[in-house]
């Protein structure tokens, strides 16, 4: 973890090469990068601490998961290093009845909403207790209890799904809204187009949160679109849009709240472009040094959303090294306990491979199940 240092706005560098730069005038910001408040939106200290703690928890889990992957104890991890404010700020704004349609980086939002650390860890391990029964890669969970849909790998599909869900609720006068996450790359997908268009025409209560983290694996945003910004794309669908400093958790909270207010008032969808930065590789399979301009990540490290909050909290609630250490320790403890349980939980039982393809197992799957169970086990897959 980076420790607090005195703040310096990073030099223009790779970081400034794209027009969607976070320092542009139309980008909403509540808290300056040095932690001072520009625009008091009335966040009390308790909330501020809660936001920070959620971000911290997200980061520590992330860090631990990367280590587990490097150690070969889990197969894969895709995290949110540097994007915690965009994820936590927006999820925090939600009301109880609202739903989340996640992309693949939002485990922090799920933990915030109540997904247990154990459940998350079991998903990383794909074990018998995994909520998705070891069927998907790590970080592809779901959480109906806390109103979160299922993570899917194909880019963008959740966008139209989220619109349909919100639309259904509106048709039934059910006063909920749906927050859907996706990346800058996803704006090029068929799904972004369809989702925004259907939402615009039917004024669905959907909040579109585009995490513009500068990259789609190795493809930078200027190869993704010639649009002036991702928010500008809202015009094509009659969907109001806003750009926000995605590393300013208060600002993200504010614009999401505003969008929810609009949605609840029947005023339809909002597109939020949260400008942030992927400080890590795309996933544990990626090496960003192959394509990232030198200095770019370093510049963004200066804008780290956690640092910014620590500066703020240091000013406001006397959050010092002691508070930090004890918060970290508690989280480490929680994570460690969960890992221990997950690691000692067996793989999903063999027969589960065939369950739930359909509500009831048809004859051909019963036959295939019997065939597999009667045979020998795959090497290294013994139970």
């Amino acid at each position: 973890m980076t420790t607090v240092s005195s703040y310096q706005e990073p030099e223009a560098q790779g970081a400034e090469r794209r027009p969607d730069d976070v320092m542009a005038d139309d980008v909403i910001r509540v808290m300056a990068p040095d932690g001072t408040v520009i625009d008091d939106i009335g966040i009390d200290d308790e909330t501020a601490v809660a936001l920070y703690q959620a971000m911290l928890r997200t980061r520590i889990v992330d860090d631990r998961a990367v280590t587990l992957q490097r150690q070969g104890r889990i197969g894969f991890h895709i995290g949110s290093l540097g994007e915690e404010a965009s994820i936590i700020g927006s999820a925090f704004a939600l009301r109880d009845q609202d739903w989340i349609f996640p992309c693949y980086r939002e485990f922090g939002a799920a933990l915030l909403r109540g997904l247990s650390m154990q459940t998350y860890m079991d998903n990383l391990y794909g074990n018998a207790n995994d909520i998705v029964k070891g069927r998907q890669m790590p970080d592809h969970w779901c959480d109906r209890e806390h109103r979160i849909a299922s993570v899917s790998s194909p880019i963008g599909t959740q966008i139209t799904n989220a619109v349909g869900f919100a639309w259904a609720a509106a048709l039934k006068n059910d006063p909920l809204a749906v927050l859907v996450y996706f990346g800058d790359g996803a704006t090029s997908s068929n799904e972004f187009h369809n989702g925004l268009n259907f939402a615009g025409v039917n004024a669905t209560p959907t909040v579109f949160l585009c995490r513009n983290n500068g990259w789609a694996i190795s493809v930078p945003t200027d190869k993704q679109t010639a649009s002036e910004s991702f928010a500008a794309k809202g015009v094509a669908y009659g969907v109001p849009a806003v750009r926000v400093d995605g590393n300013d958790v208060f600002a993200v909270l504010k614009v999401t709240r505003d969008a929810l207010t609009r949605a609840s008032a029947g005023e339809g969808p909002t597109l939020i472009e949260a400008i942030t930065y992927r400080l890590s590789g795309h996933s544990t399979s990626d090496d960003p040094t192959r394509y990232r301009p030198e200095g770019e990540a370093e510049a963004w490290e200066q804008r780290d959303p956690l640092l910014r909050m620590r500066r703020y909290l240091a000013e406001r609630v006397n959050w010092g090294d002691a508070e930090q250490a004890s918060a970290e320790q508690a989280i480490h403890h929680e994570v460690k306990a969960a890992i221990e349980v997950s690691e000692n939980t067996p793989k999903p039982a063999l027969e589960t491979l065939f369950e739930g393809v359909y509500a009831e197992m048809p004859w051909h799957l019963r036959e295939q199940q019997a065939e597999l169970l009667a045979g020998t086990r795959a090497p290294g897959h013994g139970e």
Partner: protein
Amino acid sequence: MPEMNMVQAINDALRFEMQQDDRVVVLGEDVGKVGGVFRVTAGLFDEFGADRVIDTPLSEGGIIGTAVGMALYGLRPIPEIQFSDFIFPAYDQIVSEVAKYRYRSGGEFPCNMVIRTPVGGGIRGGHYHSQSPEAQFIHVAGLKVVCPSTAADAKGLLLASIRDPDPVLFFEPKRVYRAAKGEVPEGDYTVELGKANVIREGKSLTVISYGAMLYEAMDAAEKAAEHGIECEVIDLRTLWPLDIDTIIASVKKTGRVVIVHEAPRSCGLGGELVSLINEKAFLHLEAPPRRVTGFDTPFPYTLEMEYLPLSHRILPALTETANY
């Protein structure tokens, strides 16, 4: 029982279920005021309003993608794809989301919907208003695939599909939309999914077909009977999962089988049937299972009646197989 054609029977099923179950919504291109380009949803807009009979933008991906969300919410969406040739912009949503949502969420999120779409040739539609893509869905785990051939089955299978907990591709053989006429039970009426219908009994050989080609198979079977060949004709009705028991029982009885479908031959459902029959009734086979199908070309315009596996192409296959 009133007489209806298939369009009317489907319309009747939709209306009935929409009256019973306010979770049912219909969405698609031109399904609203104009009642669909084949008039299958005629009158529903007036009866149930714009919130339940929804004209959408021109995007099949958007139609299915939003229907997924509706299904997750708990509605019973019935998206219409105007022609099954135009289902491919939605193929990703169907194979990646609809088919897998229940499984990949560990059972947390069922994603049942009925995707209705007219299928098949014989209406002078050429390449893109004639195709039969059922195999492209059967291959995908998690989907059920249905194709009625009669008006009554269309109603009964559609009501069963809407109430089924799994997603169903409901292919409507448009060549017989109006020609398939018959008595259709009023009110609530379901035909169980996964059950084939033996529409003609016979000992000489088994003919398996479905949809519009069923009529051609029956016609050929009647003609074969004039030559003393008594065909057992099976209407699959549900294409996946198949009614394997009915099929195998018949093949074990006859030892000979001809499969008829208008979809292209290679990697079609016919090939799967031949394999299953080999696996389960090999020692009963007295002749090689035969496939009479559409050719492995795009669907043609002018020569479409030569492309389709009509009675005149089925009959020689029946006699040759019977006499093998």
